[in-house]
């Protein structure tokens, strides 16, 4: 934009998104400049192209994409902006890969406060800088009021896999150990605590975090002894283990006593009739590892701040039915099934 032309700056305190911000005209250019470029600043974005150009690394690359529609947009421990960075970095990292670049696409509802948009973009920029993974290209669309819920964000990530590593869901063998990187359910409960009609007081914050640093330490410690890694987001650890059981044709047996669950999460789940095993996480991973490498991997994880509470929670077993079973703290056994329908509280 010509810097000599007079331009009234965006009112970042009281202003709102209107349809002109998505029209491709001057207003859109200003929005991108004053909010997104300011927040996400890097060499690729500042060149102002519709795409980012970069050198390609030798070896295997991974690519992933994810949409973020979290409600509420701001929650204890994060917001949709930081989540959109962490979540996609984690999906890249679960391949054992080193994430390199992100793209971001925003669908914004007419009337959305510019102050909130700035807060989200700033948070996104801070998360990307902290992770060392820049947002190098993006897109903005504005839709009429009522056609979106505030703002939706999609991010795409690419990364490069270290030589010799090929993690995949079908590689689990009976006897492999299941390692969980820390406490479960923190994100889901923190978000639910701020949902309309459901507000309850808790000091719990989301575990939203970029896990690629932890993953790098794990790959260094155990390399290809790691069969597969997953971040148990929607559907919780129950969904993750069931997915892996299906893909590999094995069962799992885990021990309830070994599962790290914070007292606040246990209490909220108790109150709402939820199972922590079904509640979403955004800064945790599950790794399946060959038995003889498990202890070394666990030790390496515990040295990293995001793996401090890591624990071996069970093992893969031979089972044609591919059940995920759990020995309860009470002493009995039960299945850990996929979540059915929505997570709804029991009523009596």
């Amino acid at each position, binding site marked *: 934009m010509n810097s000599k032309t007079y331009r009234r700056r965006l009112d970042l305190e009281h202003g709102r998104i209107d349809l002109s911000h998505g029209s491709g005209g001057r207003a859109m250019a200003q929005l991108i400049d004053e909010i997104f470029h300011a927040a996400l600043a890097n060499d690729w974005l500042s060149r102002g192209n519709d795409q980012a150009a970069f050198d390609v690394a030798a070896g295997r690359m991974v690519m992933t994409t994810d949409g973020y529609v979290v409600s509420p947009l701001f929650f204890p421990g994060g917001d949709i902006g930081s989540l959109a960075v962490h979540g996609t970095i984690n999906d890249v990292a679960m391949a054992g890969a080193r994430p390199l670049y992100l793209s971001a696409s925003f669908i914004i509802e007419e009337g959305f406060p510019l102050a909130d948009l700035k807060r989200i973009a700033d948070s996104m920029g801070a998360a990307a800088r902290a992770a060392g993974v820049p947002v190098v290209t993006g897109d903005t669309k504005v839709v009429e009021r009522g056609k979106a819920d505030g703002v939706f964000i999609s991010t795409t990530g690419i990364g490069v896999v270290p030589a010799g590593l090929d993690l995949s869901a079908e590689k689990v063998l009976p006897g492999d150990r299941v390692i969980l990187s820390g406490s479960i359910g923190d994100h889901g409960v923190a978000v639910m605590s701020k949902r309309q009609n459901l507000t309850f007081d808790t000091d719990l914050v989301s575990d939203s975090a970029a896990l690629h640093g932890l993953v790098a330490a794990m790959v260094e410690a155990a390399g290809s002894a790691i069969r597969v890694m997953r971040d148990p987001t929607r559907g919780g650890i129950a969904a993750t283990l069931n997915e892996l059981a299906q893909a590999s044709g094995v069962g799992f047996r885990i021990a309830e*006593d070994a599962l790290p669950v914070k007292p606040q999460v246990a209490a909220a789940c108790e109150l709402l009739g939820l199972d922590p095993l079904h509640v979403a996480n955004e800064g945790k991973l599950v790794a399946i590892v060959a038995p003889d490498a498990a202890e070394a991997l666990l030790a390496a994880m515990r040295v990293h701040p995001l793996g401090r509470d890591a624990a071996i929670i069970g093992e893969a077993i031979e089972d044609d039915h591919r*059940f995920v079973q759990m020995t309860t703290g009470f002493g009995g*056994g039960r299945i850990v099934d996929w979540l*059915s329908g929505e997570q709804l509280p*029991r*009523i*009596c």
Partner: protein
Amino acid sequence: MKYIDEYRDGGLARTLAARIADEADPATLYRFMEFCGGHTHAISRYGIADLLPGNIRMIHGPGCPVCVLPVGRIDAAIRLAQRPEVTLCTYGDLMRVPGSGGASLLKVKAAGADIRMVYSTLDAIRIAEAEPLREVVFFAIGFETTTPATMLAIRFAAERKLANFSIFCNHVLTPPAIRAILDGGESDHVGIDGLVGPAHVSTVIGTEPYEAFAKEAQKPVVVAGFEPLDVMHAILMLVRQINDGRHEVENQYVRAVTRAGNQKAQAGIAEMFELRESFEWRGLGTVPLSALRLKQGYAAFDAERRFDVEDIAGRDNPACECGAILRGAKTPTQCKLFGTVCTPDTPMGACMVSSEGACAAHWTYGRFRDHAKAAS
């Protein structure tokens, strides 16, 4: 969690399990029905079956208010929700309960009906206050446990002169249902030697209402809390009664339940509600004097009167064995639909709908045992 973990202690569970195994007579078959879905959930969730000797069998009763709601009442709720002026407020558990022809509130909502999921009756009141032009109907269901909350909502609405709030009343009563089970179903034989009595229901009605049929049917009843140690303790108490030839009402849940119950709640309910001559229960058929409706003085808050809701005779899937399962005459795996076309994702029968239903609990938590049995 303080005051909860104490009731889930694995060490105490092993001690109780050893005592039960010690006292249960190997030559006797002990068949106990836990009436409440809360007990069913605890038994399944904590794997209590694994801690009991083989000759103690738990039968999952009909004590899940979602499960026993008949197809016709779901159909009626769907019709209410389809009225353009109505906002139907419901607990989430009811959304997927199948009505006639595969319809459900979830599907009707997707097609445009104004249905809101709420967590309490007061949420519905708030919606009625915030949207005075909408006819807000609360889908009231539950046993004696939830009736006081509905009563308070109506009392509140009456005080605030809320003209756009009403309830679709489906509150049912526990003692008539237990009696119906013990009297035997229409066709199936009922094999029950003792009852784990309701927990939360009994906090309201007390233990006294069970005394008459414990005596008549000569079946021991032990009112128990919903924590797994409560259930184990109640099972031990039932074993002892059977071994002694007693059939008394005993109270394991002394920390919350008295013989007389919550008299304030009882008085409030008696003032506002009256008995229906009969009510249909999914699985049990028509049970006389087993449900409540609002008295004439509260007709303005009664959606059935306000919107002329007709009685609809819905039909269950004929292959569904929910009835026999609810009476303890069959187990979930003896139903042809179980685990084939009927799963928690696509429930056909009531027992599969709520996580407290006998079939859903077995499918979700316990089905590995069927395969373990088959293999051994």
